[in-house]
C-alpha cells in the first residue's frame, strides 16, 4: 500500500540522517558530555568555552595541557597537582588563587572524554548532538504515530470515483430505457454537470460547507485566547536551566508564595541578591543580566553594599555607578578597556534601562521592580490557588509547568484550559490518608476504602469539578 511505502521511505531517510551524524561525531558522547558539563563545570566555567568566569575558558584546554593524563588528574584533584608542582597547574593557580577548583574524583576517563568532546565541539561551534539530536527526534515522530489519514483520503477518492461511475452507469441505463420507451421523444440524457448543479446536490454542498465550517470555527474559537507554548522574551535572560537544573535550587526557594498563597510569586529582587551578592558575573551573560538586578534594588557590586537613598538618585548617577562596574569587570577579564569594551558597556546599559522601564505604562524610573512579562494568564473569573495544589495536593510543579529545570526561557507548557484542569481533577487521587483534614469528613469514603470497595478518592469525588471551586 501507498502509506506503508511512505513510512518505509521515512525510515530510510531517518536512518541515513542518523548515520551521517554518526560519521561526523558521536552525538551520544557529546550529549553525555553536555549533561556532565552542566552538572559539574558550568557553575565556574563559561558555557561558551571562550570567556573566563570563575574558572578559565575551556576552549583548547587539551592543547594547553598537552598531556591528557595530567589534565585528567587535575580535574580529579587539582590541589594535589599544584602540590606536585606540575608547571601548568602552578600557572593556573597563580592566575586564579585563592579560587580552588573543585575536585571531581568520581569522574571516569570516559566521563572526562565526553566532557572534552563537548567542550571541543562547542568551541568549534559544530556540535551535532545538540541541534542534530533534536532533528533526529523530530524526524522520528511520524514513525511513532501510525497515521491513517492518507488511507482514509485514498478510500474517499476511490469511493467518490466509484459513486460517479455508478451514477454514470445508472444515468446511461435510464437513458437507454427512456430511448427504448419514448424513442426520439426521450428526455435528453442527464450530464454530470446536470447532476452537480441539481437542487439536491447544491443544498447538500451548502449544508456540508456550513457543517464543516461550523465545526472548525467552533474548534478554533474554543482555542482563542489560549496561549499554550507562549514564550515571550523576558527583560532578563534568566535561565531556569541553570538555576533549577544545574544548581538544583528548589522551586519554592524563589517562588515562595506557592506553598502558602494563591500566587506562586515572582521573587523579589532581594531574593536574587541572597546568592548574587557573591556571584556577580553570570556564567552565560557576564555582567549583562545580573547588573539589571543590582540596578533594580540599588546594590553596589563594587562595594558590596546597598546604595543609600537609592530611590532619590538621578538616572545619571545610577548610570555612572553601573557603567563603571561593567567596565571594571570587562577590564578585569580582558586586561584592557578598549573600544569593544566601550560598546559593550553601552549596550549592556541600554539593556538595563529597557528591563527596568516601561514606555507603555509610563514607568521611566530605573529604580524599582524588574518588568517581567507574565506568561501564565488565567482569565479574571478563574480562581486558582497554588497553595491548594502544592501544599495540600502535593502536586509537583512540573506537572503543570513542564520541565522548567530544562528550559532556558520559560514557556507555557500546559494549555491551561478548563478541560485540562477538569481532567486532572477527575484523575488525581486526593492525599486522603496524609491530611488529618480528611479524617473528619467523608465517612462514606473512609468506610468504602476500609472495605476495599474503593481504591482512592479523586478530586472530583470531593467536589473538585463543581463550578464554585474555581469560579466565584
Amino acid at each position, binding site marked *: 500500500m501507498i502509506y506503508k511505502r511512505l513510512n518505509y521511505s521515512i525510515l530510510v531517510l531517518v536512518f541515513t540522517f542518523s548515520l551521517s551524524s554518526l560519521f561526523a561525531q558521536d552525538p551520544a558522547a557529546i550529549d553525555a558530555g553536555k549533561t556532565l558539563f552542566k552538572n559539574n563545570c558550568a557553575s565556574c566555567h563559561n558555557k561558551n568555552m571562550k570567556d573566563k568566569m570563575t574558572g578559565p575558558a575551556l576552549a583548547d584546554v587539551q592543547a594547553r595541557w598537552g598531556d591528557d593524563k595530567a589534565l585528567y588528574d587535575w580535574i580529579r584533584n587539582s590541589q594535589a597537582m599544584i602540590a606536585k608542582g606540575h608547571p601548568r597547574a602552578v600557572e593556573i593557580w597563580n592566575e586564579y588563587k585563592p579560587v580552588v577548583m573543585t575536585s571531581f574524583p568520581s569522574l571516569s576517563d570516559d566521563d572526562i572524554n565526553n566532557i572534552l568532546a563537548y567542550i571541543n565541539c562547542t568551541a568549534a561551534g559544530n556540535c551535532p548532538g545538540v541541534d542534530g539530536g533534536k532533528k533526529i527526534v523530530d524526524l522520528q515522530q511520524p514513525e511513532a504515530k501510525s497515521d491513517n489519514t492518507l488511507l482514509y483520503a485514498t478510500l474517499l477518492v476511490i469511493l467518490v470515483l466509484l459513486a460517479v461511475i455508478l451514477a454514470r452507469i445508472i444515468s446511461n441505463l435510464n437513458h437507454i430505457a427512456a430511448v427504448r420507451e419514448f424513442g426520439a421523444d426521450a428526455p435528453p440524457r442527464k450530464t454530470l454537470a446536470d447532476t452537480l448543479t441539481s437542487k439536491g446536490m447544491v443544498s447538500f454542498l451548502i449544508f456540508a460547507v456550513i457543517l464543516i465550517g461550523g465545526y472548525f470555527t467552533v474548534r478554533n474559537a474554543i482555542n482563542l485566547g489560549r496561549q499554550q507554548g507562549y514564550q515571550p522574551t523576558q527583560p532578563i535572560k534568566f535561565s531556569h536551566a541553570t538555576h533549577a537544573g544545574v544548581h538544583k535550587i528548589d522551586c519554592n526557594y524563589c517562588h515562595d508564595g506557592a506553598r502558602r498563597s*494563591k500566587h506562586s510569586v515572582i521573587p523579589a529582587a*532581594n531574593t536574587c541578591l541572597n546568592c548574587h551578592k557573591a556571584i556577580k558575573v553570570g556564567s552565560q551573560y557576564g555582567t549583562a543580566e545580573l547588573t539589571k538586578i543590582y540596578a*533594580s*534594588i540599588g546594590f553596589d557590586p563594587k562595594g558590596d553594599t546597598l546604595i543609600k537613598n537609592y530611590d532619590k538618585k538621578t538616572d545619571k548617577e545610577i548610570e555612572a555607578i553601573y557603567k563603571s562596574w561593567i567596565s571594571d569587570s570587562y577590564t578585569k577579564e580582558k586586561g584592557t578597556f578598549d573600544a569593544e569594551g566601550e560598546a559593550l558597556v553601552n549596550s549592556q546599559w541600554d539593556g538595563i534601562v529597557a528591563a527596568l522601564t516601561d514606555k507603555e505604562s509610563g514607568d521611566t524610573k530605573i529604580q524599582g521592580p*524588574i518588568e517581567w512579562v*507574565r506568561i501564565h494568564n488565567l482569565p479574571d473569573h478563574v480562581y486558582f490557588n497554588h497553595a491548594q495544589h502544592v501544599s495540600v495536593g502535593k502536586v509537583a510543579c512540573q506537572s503543570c509547568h513542564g520541565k522548567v529545570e530544562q528550559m532556558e526561557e520559560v514557556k507555557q507548557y500546559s494549555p491551561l484550559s478548563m478541560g485540562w484542569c477538569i481532567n486532572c481533577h477527575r484523575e488525581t487521587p486526593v492525599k486522603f490518608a496524609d491530611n488529618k483534614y480528611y479524617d473528619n469528613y467523608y465517612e462514606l469514603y473512609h468506610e468504602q476504602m476500609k472495605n476495599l470497595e474503593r481504591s482512592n478518592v479523586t478530586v472530583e469525588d470531593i467536589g473538585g469539578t*463543581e463550578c*464554585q471551586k474555581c469560579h*466565584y
Partner: protein
Amino acid sequence: MKNQNKNTEVWVGVEHLEQDPIFLESINREFNDTPALLQADGLKLGASRRDFLKYLGFSVGAATIASCDIPVKKALPYVVKPDEIVPGVATYYASSYVKGGDYCAVLVKTREGRPIKIEGNAMSSLTQGGTSARVQAAVLSLYDTNRYQSPMKNDGGKWSKMSWEDLDKEIGGKLAAGSVKVITNTILSPTAKKALGEFLAKYPGSSVVTYDAVSSSAQLQANENCFGKKAIPNYMFDKASMIVSFGADFLGTWISPVEYARQYAVTRRIEEASKASMSRHIQVESSMTLTGSNADHRVLVRPSEMGAAVATLYNAIASKTGEATVSAPKVNEKAAAALAKVADQLIANKGKSLVVCGTNNIGEQTLVNGINNMLDSWGNTMTFANASLQRQGVDSEIQGLIREMNAGSVGSVIVWGANPAFDLPNSDKFAEAFAKVKTKVSFNGTPDETTALCDYIAPTHHWLESWGDAEPKEGIYSLIQPTIAPIFKTRQAEESLLRWAGSQNINPSAEQPYYEYLNANWQSTMFTSQNSFATFEAFWDNALHDGIFEKPVAAFPEFGWNGDVNAAAAKVTKPGSGEIEISFFETVNVGAGQYADNPWLQEMPDPITRCVWGNYLQIPIEFDGNKSFDGVGKFAGLNNKEGYKEADQIEITVAGKKQLVTCVRQFGQKKDTVGLALGYGRKVSGAAGRNIGVNVYPWMSIDADGNTQYFATVDTVSGYIATTEYASVQYHHTMGVTGKAKGYEGEVNVDEIALMRVGKGFQGSLVERSVINRTNLNELPTFLKELEEKRAEFEHLNQQTLYPYDQFVAEKYSQGHHWGMHIDLNSCTGCGACQVACLAENNVPVVGKFEVYRHHEMTWLRIDRYFFGDYENPNVVYQPMMCQHCDNAPCENVCPVSATNHSSEGLNQMAYNRCIGTRYCANNCPYKVRRFNWMDYTTADLFPVNEHGPEPFVPYDGEVPFYADNLTRMVLNPDVTVRVRGVMEKCSFCVQRIQEGKLTAKKEGRALRDGDVKSACMTACPTGAIVFGDTNNEESEIAKRYKNELNYIVLEEINVRPSVQYTTRVTNRDEALLS
C-alpha cells in the same frame, strides 16, 4: 375595632393592604417591574432582525480579531518584599474607626498592602466585634476620588495647589497675628488633645470650640448640674428588663449604637422557648426610628410634646413612690394614659429599668435623670464608671464663637473635621461671621461647605492612613494604625498642629513624626497606668496587636444627686400649637451629613423609609376602618401610587423658608406630624452627596440654653406635583405575598390557581405563604403548638414527591460540609450593617438612583420590612433575605445552560461566565433574591451619569464613571469576580471565605473548626443575629441554633429545602398597657 386586620396579617405597604389589583399583578412579575429598558426614553432599542444580524456579525468579527492578539501583561514583583506580606494572602491589622464621636474597634483586612474590608474587633469590650453600616462603608471613602490631594490655597475664589513647606511658611506667620480658634466635633483621641494643648499654648487667647451636629449638649449640661460629671453615662441595656426611650434612637444613631444594639439583643434573644424571657421596650416618639420600629410599644407624641411626656412619666412615678411631683405641661391623653401604665411597670422593675432620652433640652434631660434616680437605675443599669466620652460638644460654644467672629476678636480659625457652614441651624450666620476672620484653615480631607470658605486647605490623612488613638469611654483606649501609605500628599492634622506650634516634642525630619509623638505619649501615660507589662515595647506591641487597651473596670463611683427637678420642669418644651409639626433625625446612612458622599451608604435603603439617594418627607397614614388608607389632613391624597413607583412633591415652609420635598407614606408616623432626615442637601461635597435631597438644618432652631432643637412647626403646606423621583425598595422583590387569606376570590398567581384546582392537600395552601412568623411572649406556648402543627403539615405536603428529600440528603450531603445560615429575627434590628458588608466583600456595584427607581438594585442581601398589628401604629419585623441555597432549588432546574447548579456542600452555585442571561432562574426564584446586571454597572454605563434624579441617561460627559476609576477600584476584593452586563448574580454564601477557611485547615492538616468560616454579613452584625456554619458539624453554633423550637423556614410549604432558617419574631407586648 377600627384598626383590625382585614386582609392580611403582615403587610409591606398600603397597596398590599388595599389589595390593589395593579400592585398585586405587578408583584407576580419577575422583578415586579415593567421591562426596564423600554422606559428609558433616551435609549433607542428598536433593533430589527437585520440589525440583529449586523450586530451579530460585527461582534463575532470583533471578538475574533480581539482574541487573536495576545496582550502582553506585565508582572511586577516587589523589590524588597516586606516580611508580613505574602501576595495573595490577606493581612489583618487592628485599628479603630473614629469619625467625630462615632467609634468602633475594627480589624482592617488588607491585600497586597491595600485595605479592602473592615471587620469588627471582638477583643473590644465596647463593640465586641460588632460594626455598623457606616463602619463597613468607611473603606470606600479611603479611595474617594474627591479627596484633596495636596495642600491648597484660595486666591480670591481660585484654588491652587501648594507644597507643605510653602504652606507651613505662610501659615506660621498668619497664625501669630491674634487668637486662634479650632472648631472640631467631638475628639476622642487623648494624644490629639495633648497636641491641641501644645498648639493652644503657643498662641495666647486661643481655644478649642467643640460641637456635634447631632448633639448631646443638653444631656452633658444636665449631668453636670445633677451629678457634677459632664459626661454621658455608661448605659447597660443588657441589665434592663424595662426600657423606655424618649426619642433616643439608641439602636440606630444615638451615641454608641453598635454597643447598645449588642446589649439590647441580649435581652431580646430567645434561645430556648421554654425559658423565654424578654425585656419590654417602649419608645416615645412621633416619627418612626430604627429603635422605635424594634420596640414593643410606641407611644406617639408630637415632637413638642416630648417634654410634657417626660414630665408626665416623672410625675406618675413620683406620685406612686411618694416623691414630690413637678408642675409641667400636659401630654395628649392617649399618651398620658399609656405613660401612667408604663410608670407602674417601671416601678415594678425598679433597679432593672432604664430610661433614656434623646432630646436636646436641659430640663427634659434633668427630669430623665430624676426618673432614673427614683427607679434606682444608677449603679444598676447605668453608671459613670467608664463614662462615655462619645459626645463632648456643647452647642452654645459655637454660638459664642459666631459672636466673637462678628466682633472681630478672632485672628484665625482652624476647622478640623467639623462642617459648621452646613450643619448648624444658623449656618448662614456662621458663614457671614466666618468671612470676617482673616486666616481660615481647614484640615478636612474632602470637600465640604466650610472648607470651601477657607483660605487654606491642609488636608489630613484618611484614618486608614493615620496613626492615632481614641478613648471612647473613660479607661477604654484604642489605637489607630495606618494600613496603607498615604495615597496623596496629605499630612495628619495633629502633625500640622504640632509643627505650627513649634513643638519640641516632635521631630519634623522623622519619617513619621506623629507616630513618635503618639508612642511617647502612650509611654508616659497608658504604660505607667498598668502593671501587666514590664517594658514599654512589650506593652506597645501588645496594644497595637490587640488594637485596644482597657484598664480594669473601676468600682461604680458614687455620685450625689443634686438635680433641681422643679427648675427643670419649668424648662421643658411647651407643646406647640401649630397644626403640623416636623421632626428632624439622623439616619443610619448619612448621619448628620458627614457620610453623605459615600455611595455605599447612599444606596443602602434607609431602614425606615426604605428609600435611597435622598431624604423623603414621612407623612402619616390614616385608616378609615373599612378599606381605604390615605394621608391625613393636608396630606390626603398624596402618594397614592407608591406601589407603582410614583411619589408626590410638596412645598413646605418652616421658619419662613420654603423647600420642595418628596413624600413617602410612613406607617407609624403620628397624625399631624411629619419627619425628615438630616444630612442631605449638601451643596459642596463629594460627587455622591452633592444636591441629593433637602437640607433641613436651616429649619431648625436654638433654644434659650443655646442648644439646637431638632423639630419645628410647619407653617404652610402647598401644592403638590406628581414625580417619578421615588427610589424606594419597599415594593421591590416582594415574595408573592399575594393573596387574601380567606377564600380565593381575589387575585392570585396563575400557577397557584392551577394548583388549587388540583385540590387541597397538595400545595393548595400557597396563598397563605409562610414568610413571616411572629408572636407575642404571652402567646408563646400556643404559638409553638401551632408552629409545630404547621411545619408538620408542610413536611407532610413535601413528602408527596417522587424524590424523597431524606434519601437525597443521605446520598449527597451526608458527608463533607453542608453550609447553612441561621437568622434570629429577634436580634436583628434592621440596621443594615450586613448589607454594606456584603457590598464590600462581594464587589456588588452601586447603580444609582434611577436604576434603583426601576428595580435594578444589585444588593445580594436585602432587609425586608413587614408591618403587623395596628395600622396606625404598627410593629415592625425586619427580615434579612438573601439566596436561601435551596437543596431543591427551583432556579437550577430552569437554567438552560446549567449556569446555576448545586454543589456537594449544599451551595447553590452561580457560574457567571456560563450564564447567558435568560433570567429564567430569577423568574423561578420564590425568594426573589437573584439580581440581573441590566447594565455594565462596574464600568462604563452608569454613575455618575445617573446619580441625580430619574432623568434617563444624561449623555456621558467624559468624567470617569464611579467604579471605572482606578483609585475606586482599589477597594475591590481580588478574590471575587467583577460581573459584567447580562449575567445573573446572587449571594454565594461568601464562597471565597468558605474556600479560604477550608484551605487553611487543610494546610494545617486539621479539621475545620467552627468559626473558621464566617460570612461577611455574620461578621458585620452588631447583635450576632446571623450565624453561618457547617450544619453537618454537630458541635457547631449553627447546629445549636438550628435546634431552636422557634425556628421556621420561609416558604417551607413549597418544598425547596432552603439552607437558611429564621427564628420567629417574638414581641413582648402587653395589650393592657396601651388599651
